[in-house]
């Protein structure tokens, strides 16, 4: 089997160092990272804050270029239009245009994906129904709650029928019911053949939806494996690899 062709995302010895105005290195966010996301799997990128998850995601999306190493998306440069045509992205915060309605927002991203007016209209209706926002389709998203805005953002990510869906903290800020709905949706999409790359702080969520995970710490991969073959809970595995929980000095605040 041609593994290269099966890999939707591949990073080979990728490092990313941020520099200041004078090009002096300030932060080494990712260090010699190699990973491969296979077609059809749900891959979780886990790690504590500042571990390099977002930087890695941005390099995969083509928003950042690696200082060293190579990132390939469908075997192409992430900045190529052909690679971006097969990609859907849900950021950690929804970042929607507040003056657009829900239908206009999804229609706008449908236009960016090259859908015709008729296709865009049909796809918008489908997605609004899927995320349960048909009744508020004509309301400006600026008036939406965080959960509703998140659903619009998710629908926008799916509008171009992507082969790879990149989710940055998909359940961030959602109530338990919405969280469950998102997880169910991700599982359904994966069963339909979509490849999903997700980051999460919530290990229980990752455990529920991911086939395989990689744990990052200080920009390096500290562990990688199938969730089903861990032999322990993901939380225990995570703490074992990343370190113990910080003991906060609470005493002064409890007097």
């Amino acid at each position, binding site marked *: 089997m041609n593994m290269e062709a099966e890999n939707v995302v591949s990073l080979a010895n990728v490092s990313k160092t941020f520099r200041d105005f004078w090009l002096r290195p300030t932060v080494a966010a990712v260090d010699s990272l190699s990973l491969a996301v296979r077609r059809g799997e749900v891959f979780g990128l886990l790690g504590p804050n500042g571990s390099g998850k977002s930087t890695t995601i941005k390099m995969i999306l083509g928003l*950042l*270029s690696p200082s060293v190493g190579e990132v390939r998306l469908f075997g192409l440069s992430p900045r190529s239009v052909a690679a971006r045509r097969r990609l859907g992205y849900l950021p950690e915060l929804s970042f929607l245009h507040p003056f657009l309605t829900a239908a206009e927002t999804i229609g706008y991203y449908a236009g960016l*994906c090259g859908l015709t007016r008729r296709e865009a209209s049909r796809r918008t209706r489908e997605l609004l129904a899927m995320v349960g926002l048909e009744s508020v389709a004509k309301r400006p998203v600026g008036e939406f709650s965080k959960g509703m805005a998140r659903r619009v953002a998710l629908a926008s990510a799916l509008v171009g029928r992507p082969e790879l869906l990149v989710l940055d903290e998909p359940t961030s800020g959602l109530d338990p019911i919405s969280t469950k709905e998102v997880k169910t949706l991700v599982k359904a999409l994966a069963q339909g053949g979509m490849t999903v790359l997700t980051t999460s702080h919530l290990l229980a969520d990752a455990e529920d939806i991911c086939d395989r995970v990689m744990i990052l710490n200080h920009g390096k991969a500290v562990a990688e494996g199938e969730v089903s073959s861990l032999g322990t809970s993901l939380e225990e595995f995570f703490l074992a690899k990343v370190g113990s929980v910080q003991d906060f000095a609470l005493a002064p605040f409890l007097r």
Partner: protein
Amino acid sequence: MRAFLGIFQLELKALSRSRSLLMLAAASAAWMFVVPRLVVGDGTAEGMREVCLGYGLGGVLALVTVSMLAAATGSLARERAEKRLQLTMVRPVRYFAIVAAKIAALSSAGAAVLALACALAPFCAGSASNHRRCVHVLRPLMPSPREEAKAMYAEYMKLPDTPDAVKKARPSTVLRLLATRAWDRYDTVRTNAVAAWRFPAAAVRGVRSGEVSTRLKFSNTYNARQDVAGELRLGELSAAVSNLTQAVLVFPLADRGGEAGEEGVLSFRNLGKDALMLRPRRDVELLIPADSFFWNLLRSWIEMAATLTLVVAFGLFLSASLGRPVALFTAIVFLLVSEMSPSVVEQYPDEFGATLSDRIGLMVARTVAEVSHPISSMNPLERLSRDECVEPREVAHAVAVNAFALPVFLALLAAFILPRKQEN
């Protein structure tokens, strides 16, 4: 194309739903009606018309330019700061299309407000405006001042009177000085002498008696006003020149018989007591009837819209490269300096004898004047208010350069910068 249209519509929706466009249109309409009535004219209908067109449309042009510049400098920078831009950039859309669609949207919005002001202009300037005709302004066919400067250079440097500082200066500095002199060079017409200037024969061929006029701006070494007498002749047409004032004089040329002059050559025989001085590049013009005020207004609008497109493209280029406040500040400073620098360069054509700081200031002013020449050289409103034709050739140049070539270049630069700016 769908992506381009999507971004174009989004930008227009942002302007209209924030009511910015409505406010701008309302302010422009109010300006067109109110401001000309607040400004005191010279009491004549002609003066009032100049105030309406110059201050009215000029004010709206300034308002729209600054507003669209502010919108352009904020557009990409704000979307980047609010992280909306990355959602567009991960879609299958070329970065160039993102910038180009925003340029098209903002310049279309600005052009629409300018069109509204232009539509109101005939009402504000008086209904007589609609029936007026504009004129082509022709100047003598001569080598350009720069060409004349090149021809003079070697001889000038050998002259014993040429100052040592000039002889030691760089050729480009001396050529600039000579070009300025060539632009202002006088022809002296002594009593009973004839001065002649060639005009494009095709442009003056077939003009009928009474249709063509000559505009002259006389001066001499001693007086600002003097008795001028003489005869003008263009082909078979002629005019007697007799006036006691020294202001700008317009003489209609008519068929009065007599010996026909050479085709396309305007001659002036000085029959007065004193020698007269004329700067052929500035003081001698032929006025030939063109089309109506309406068409001239339309051409002025196209030229203003083209210039606005360039301003918007510049704003978006800055927005792609810098944060919003810095981009806006840079754009406003550049706009102000570009407005001032041509007059600085005109007043101080050379830096001989200047201090180092003055030389640096002049160098900056000259560089900005050259860079901003496409914007500063386009001012159709002055000609519109004087009923001088905004030439179609010039409008075509404005569209090709200001509305197309330079914005495309700036959009390509912005598209190159966009992904690199995400690195910060």
